[in-house]
Structures are given as C-alpha cells and as structure tokens.
C-alpha cells in the first residue's frame, strides 16, 4: 500500500519500527500546520523552521508514546508541536530576563508588554472558524486561552498577571475549551 494512502496511525506504527519513509509522509501531511503555528506564535521564519525540525525529530524519537486507543494522532502531535513552540517562547523569555538583568516578574508577557489586548493578539495570528469561535467566548475565558496558547503563560503566571485566583484561572481555561469545542461543533465543515 502506498504510504500516502495509509492512516496516520499506520504511519506512526511504521515510524516506531524505524521506517524513515513513514516519517517523511507524516512530514508531508503535518509540516505546514506545525510550521504555520510556530511562525504564527514566534513570528520569526528561521526560528519557526528550527522548531519545526525539532518537532519532527521528537516525533521520530517519541512515536512509541502515541497510543491510538487513547486518542487521535493529530491531536496528540499538534499538542507535542505546540509544546515545543511554547518551550521556545519561554526560553526567549528567560534569555530576556538574563540579558536585562531583571527578575522574572519584571519581564512582561506578550500582551502586557505590547499593550495589545487578547482580541488584538487573536486578530494578528488566527483565522477562520477557530478564530471566530475564540472571539465568541466570554472575554475572561478568551484572555486565559490566548495568554496560555499564544503567549506561553502558565496558569500561575496568568493568575499573577491578571490578579485572578488560580482556581478561577483553572475554571476559565476549562469552560473556555468546552465552549470553544461547542462553538466549533456548530460551524459547518468543522470536526469538533
């Protein structure tokens, strides 16, 4: 069977077995969304390429961790990719702390330092029905999702920066993702 007609799960099992061709087929399928996400968040082409490369090397070494009985490959892999992108965001933030000789609390997160609102951050990098669904969330939920997803803030950092109790941040993250999924399920052509 041609690799291009195999499912993601079948290809991943081949990658576990050391099949470089299967990895290349997964690269064909996912390099664009991975790179688009990396570029959208990092805003630097070279850095986005570096992260994309590392994401697929991570897939090569960690493919055995994917369990098809527990979820969809696309969800698992994009989560892994986002994790690598956010690692780079946080690495840059730590570097900024060191170079500015400031305490970590004094290095502003993206929204605070740029003066942008969460809505402006969304408009700058997101498109389509997912963007529209995000804009359909209550502002406090949207802010938590944006600070986490686009800015790489931990929930503790979000709580500190917004002056919100940690428990409230957790609730807003949970309700925000639930609502996002509901809104996307209502969008034609979207798989929620």
């Amino acid at each position, binding site marked *: 069977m041609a690799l291009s007609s195999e499912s993601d799960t079948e290809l991943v099992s081949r990658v576990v077995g*050391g099949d*470089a061709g299967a*990895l*290349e087929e997964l*690269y064909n399928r996912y*390099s*664009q969304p991975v*790179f*688009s*996400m990396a*570029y*959208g968040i990092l*805003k*630097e*082409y*070279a850095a*986005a*390429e570096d992260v*994309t*490369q590392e994401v697929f*090397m991570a897939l*090569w070494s960690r493919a055995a961790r994917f*369990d098809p009985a*527990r*979820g969809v490959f696309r*969800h698992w892999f*994009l*989560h892994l*990719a*986002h994790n690598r992108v*956010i690692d780079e965001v946080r690495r840059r933030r730590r570097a900024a702390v060191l170079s500015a000789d400031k305490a970590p609390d004094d290095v502003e997160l993206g929204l605070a330092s740029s003066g942008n609102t969460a809505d402006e951050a969304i408009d*700058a*990098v*997101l*498109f*389509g*029905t*997912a*963007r529209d669904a*995000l804009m359909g969330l209550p502002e406090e939920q949207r802010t938590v*999702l944006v600070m*986490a*997803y686009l800015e*790489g803030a*931990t*929930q*503790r950092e*979000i709580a500190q920066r917004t002056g919100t109790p940690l428990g409230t941040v*957790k609730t807003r*993250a*949970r*309700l*925000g*993702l*639930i609502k*996002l*999924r509901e809104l*996307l399920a209502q969008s034609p052509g*979207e798989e*929620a």
Partner: protein
Amino acid sequence: MTEDGPADAVEELLPAYALNALDGEDASTVEHALEREPRYREILERYLAAAAHLAGAHAAAVPSAAVRDRVMARVRAASPGGGAAAAAVRAAPRAFWGLAAALALALLGLGTYSVVQQQRLADLEDQLQATTADAEGKGNMLEGIGDLMARPGVVAAPLSPAPQAPGSDVVATLSPERGSDASGMVITGADGESVLLTMNLAPLGEAETYQAWWWDEDGDPSHAAVFDVDDDGFASVPLRGRASGMYSITVHVARAGETERPARRPVIGGTIPTRP
C-alpha cells in the same frame, strides 16, 4: 466534558495541560496520572481536540525544502546503516523541483508558445530525466505535476512581474526594464484547493518573508500564504482560501508580523482565470 466541575485535582489540571500552560511539577503530575487512569486520557482528548483547532487556525505558512532535507538526513543518519543511507539522500531535490516547475509553466502555455519555446520545453524534459536518474522517487514528482494538470477541472494561472488587481493603491505594474525574471503559477484543482509555485524569487533575510494575497473584484485582499523560497528562488505553497470568486493574486515581501494587508508593492501577480 461538561460544565460540571472537575472530579478531582488531576482533572482540574487537564485543560491547562492541553494548552501547555502547566509548570513542570503540575505537568508531571498529569503525565503520571494519565499512565495510571485511562479516564483522564479520555477527558484530556476532548480538550486536545479543541486546542488542535487553535493550532490549525494560523495563516498558512510553509517551511523551506531545507527543513525536510535536514530532518530526513538526521533520521537516516540515526537509522541502522545510517551512514550509507544519509549519503543516499536525494542528490538535488531543489534543482528537481525548480525544473519540474519550469516544465509545468511551459506545459501550461504550450498552445501559444513559439518553436523556440517548444525547444526550451524539450530541453527541460531532458534535464528532468537526467536529474531524476540519480534522485529518489524519480519521476514521481513530475508525474504528480503532470497528473494534477491533466485532471479535469484543473485551472492554472501564470504569474509575472506585472500584477493586476482592481481598486488597490498598493499594486503597480513593474517595469519590464527592471529585468526581473521572477515568475509563478497558481494551480487550482477541481476541488478548489490551490497551490502556488514560484521561480526566481530572491531569497530574503531573516526579518522578511513572502506573502501571497488574493484580491476580489472590489479590491479587498485576503491572506493566502506566508512562505520563503529556497536558494533557487523556488517555492511550492498550498494556499489558504479559494481562487473561486477572486480576481487576482499577488506576492509581496513583508516583515514578520505584517499580516493585515500588503504593505509593499507586489513582486509577482496575475489574474485568476474563470472556469469554463
């Protein structure tokens, strides 16, 4: 996944875990719990599905071919017998794609080409055969382009340094005296999905990228892609949105983060043919 409160402390951490918003200790707590309790994985999967939609909502951008080359070279070097395998990585993938794109461009305009240009087409075919003889997957890419263009309903739009877009004060016709040999082509399949091929676009510095924009008949732009080119000025870019209903497409140089509308004159562009 309902609006009812989480059942326990681990379940309470799962949304933030899906967003990669946990510090190291909390993330480890979740990962250990996921190994122990299948129900946590089921709950997490629903949050991951929502987060995956965010991941797919960014403007279309394509890495250069060099990224694939580096990944596959590292993979093959790490594989059993990887030394020999690494050496067998395709000899000239970018040169192949450049020639394949040139052939595709020539094939499109074949009906109006002069005898000289048809000879050029024959030369390209010879070069492609010579190049693919040493490359992996020889013929597959060329067959892919040929097959694509032979399918019913496929439409192709050639792009040149003479962009046309109504109602836009950004677009201007570039003088032929500039000597730009940049060109491109948009291939739209019967399903409405489109790919942009470019040739001889100048590679850019780190702070700049190329952006492609659709223009409708009212002169309003919509974002089609962000991309970079390889050393040969070649790129193969899937486009966001559909050519149907659009008047033209242009390619511009942009600085990182410039995504609202084109800020500079286009480097290539062309009108979108309507389907018969």
